[in-house]
């Protein structure tokens, strides 16, 4: 199965004629994703450089193509609007790659679009290896398999995936949920989806400092995923309090969002925490073999 995305998912790209949108549309198509069209207001009726139909509005695109998924590459001031447009047009799954979307825009969108699963913003998207990719992840490092991966980061995800693939551990779906303080889909949302996915036999959670998404994930695991092999990693253990490191959401505020709290929460839920990304494959193999015996 995999979660959120498979071979049959029909995807449109909002911002398909822009530099980023156009480039990554080509890569997603090359990976086998069913991109069925794109949206650029004012360029409706034209073809994209990939030969895909371009529409003026998401509504037209959905009516003509039956798309259920969208991938958004529009600039930050317009990302909130793009998400609302997707929702009103009946899109059920939206990936927002854009970095720098105002936090109030995200808050308003996630509060008013029940039923639409939003990944991001400020994320690399997701990939179900061997099936489809929506976003900007480099497809060639992934391998189809049974490990579900969730991460708040981009390149760190690739680092971890590379290690898994080299160790022969393929992936069911990898989701980059994004590094902003407010995001549409959280670790818990993904864990719930993985829990219901037959293809996913083990899970890696790549968290980082800031917020309490990792603590919530640990609580969910303790309650619903005992027995599933899961390994966690927390980035930014040596970050100073009060300052964001790279990601707007990666910030320790007072005693909140510290690595200690997150590590303790995972350990309490019986989840081993890797000190370095390189330890993840071995820890996961160990956990998988003891789980099966």
């Amino acid at each position, binding site marked *: 199965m995999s979660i959120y995305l498979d071979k049959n998912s029909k995807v449109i790209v909002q911002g398909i004629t822009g530099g980023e949108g156009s480039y990554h549309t080509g890569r997603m198509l090359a990976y086998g994703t069913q991109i069925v069209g794109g949206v650029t207001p004012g360029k409706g009726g034209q073809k994209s450089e990939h030969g895909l139909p371009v529409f003026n509005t998401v509504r037209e695109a959905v009516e003509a193509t039956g798309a259920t998924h969208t991938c958004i590459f529009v600039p*930050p*001031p317009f990302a909130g609007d793009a998400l609302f447009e997707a929702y009103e047009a009946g899109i059920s799954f939206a990936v927002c790659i854009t970095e720098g*979307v*105002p*936090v*109030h*825009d*995200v*808050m*308003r969108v*996630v*509060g*008013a679009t029940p039923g639409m699963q939003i990944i991001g913003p400020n994320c*690399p998207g997701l990939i179900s290896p061997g099936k489809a990719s929506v976003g*900007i*992840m*480099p497809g*060639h*490092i992934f391998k189809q398999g049974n490990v579900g991966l969730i*991460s*708040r*980061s*981009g*390149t*760190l*995800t*690739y*680092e971890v995936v*590379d290690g898994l693939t080299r160790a022969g551990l393929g992936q069911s779906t990898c989701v980059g949920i994004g*590094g902003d*303080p*407010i995001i549409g889909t959280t670790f818990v949302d993904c864990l719930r989806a993985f829990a219901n996915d037959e293809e996913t036999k083990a899970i890696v959670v790549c968290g*980082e*400092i800031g*917020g*309490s*998404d990792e603590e*919530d994930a640990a609580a969910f695991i303790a309650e619903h995923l005992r027995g599933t092999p899961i390994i966690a990693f927390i*980035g*930014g*253990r*040596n*970050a*100073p*309090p*009060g*300052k*964001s*490191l*790279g*990601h*707007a*959401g*990666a910030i320790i505020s*007072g*005693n909140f969002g510290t690595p200690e709290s997150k590590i303790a929460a995972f350990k309490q839920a019986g989840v081993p925490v890797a*000190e*370095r*990304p*390189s330890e993840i494959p071995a820890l996961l193999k160990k956990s998988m073999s003891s789980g099966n015996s």
Partner: protein
Amino acid sequence: MNLMEYQGKELFRRSGIPIPRSQHCTTPEAVGDFLAENPGEWVLKAQVLMGGRGKAGKIKFAAGREQGIALAREIMATPMPPNRQNPNGEAINSLLVEEKLSIAKEAYCAITVDRTTKRPVAMVSKYGGMEIEEVAHEHPESIAKFFIDTAIGYSPFIGRELAFGSDLDPGYRKQLPAILASLYKLFFEYGAKLVEINPLALTTDGRVIASDAKVELDDDALFKHKEFAEWHAVLPLDEDEQLATEAGLGIRNFRRFGGTVGTMANGAGLAMATMDAVKFAGGEIANFLDVGGGANAERVRKCYELVVNHTPAKVFFINIFGGITRGDEVAKGIVEALRTTTSRKVPLVIRLTGTNEEQGRKILAEAGMTPVETMDEGAAQAVRIAAGA
């Protein structure tokens, strides 16, 4: 972007939140002139972003021109003393001269962004005038919270629930719902991440007034309010943020830690993991640096110079995972950057993997650089070099 008190109070004034009468002054003479025309005792408050002004002697009472000038000079003569988050302290460039309130009670109220519920949260506590973290620690039950549905917005019952829920002095009850309404309006209108009134004073004559103002605006939303560019200019720039901006990086992409192992990686998560790897290998980190995507020669050179010129780095560990970023492009960038830089030379440790890694490694090898295989190996080698240099 955190605002100074006088800037926050200007937003309070625009939004209809009651504030004390005040005058913002940038020189002791201006303070003297104001006090000459306005008899009675006034409060002189240093305008800084750091907390702890009272303890540092940066809030004083003055009456009349002479005393006003003398005390203003005294406050401005020395910077705020350093603390853990602000190791350099903070210079005092202006004062707020404010009406002295006769305070009966102090409370706390704020609206901020709650990450878990993804909603604005309004908070009220009867313990005002102290750090809210302290209150949360000592009297967690005293903080009443309401998570606001953005589609509905603020409604006065929220203020009533919070006033009763926090056991606020009855003197506040009538005015709190309106003050919270204005605070919510401000929060929304300006896309703030935090609006905080601490303390919210109840005066002996029954007025409810914002005695202090703390506002944090969303840097990503500043484009909606061009007028803030002017305010931004007077805010004390964090030196690391300033350096990052000069190097063409985002303000969050560079931070120094004083150690001897310089680092650079592409992507924030990988850059944090790189720091952690150096620490794990027993080294002291010089800096965090996320070079972002598209690490071309110009970018790499600026980052290299940023680290060697502004940190005590004895080695520079470059950790690149080529996803979208192509390994050969980065390798060319590194070689070119080192060839063109005029800054001091430190040994490089390069880890380059992912897209086009073979071509990248070949380019580095031809330039006499030998990349390491893994992040752990790179961290260990960088730490050894820093220790031996």
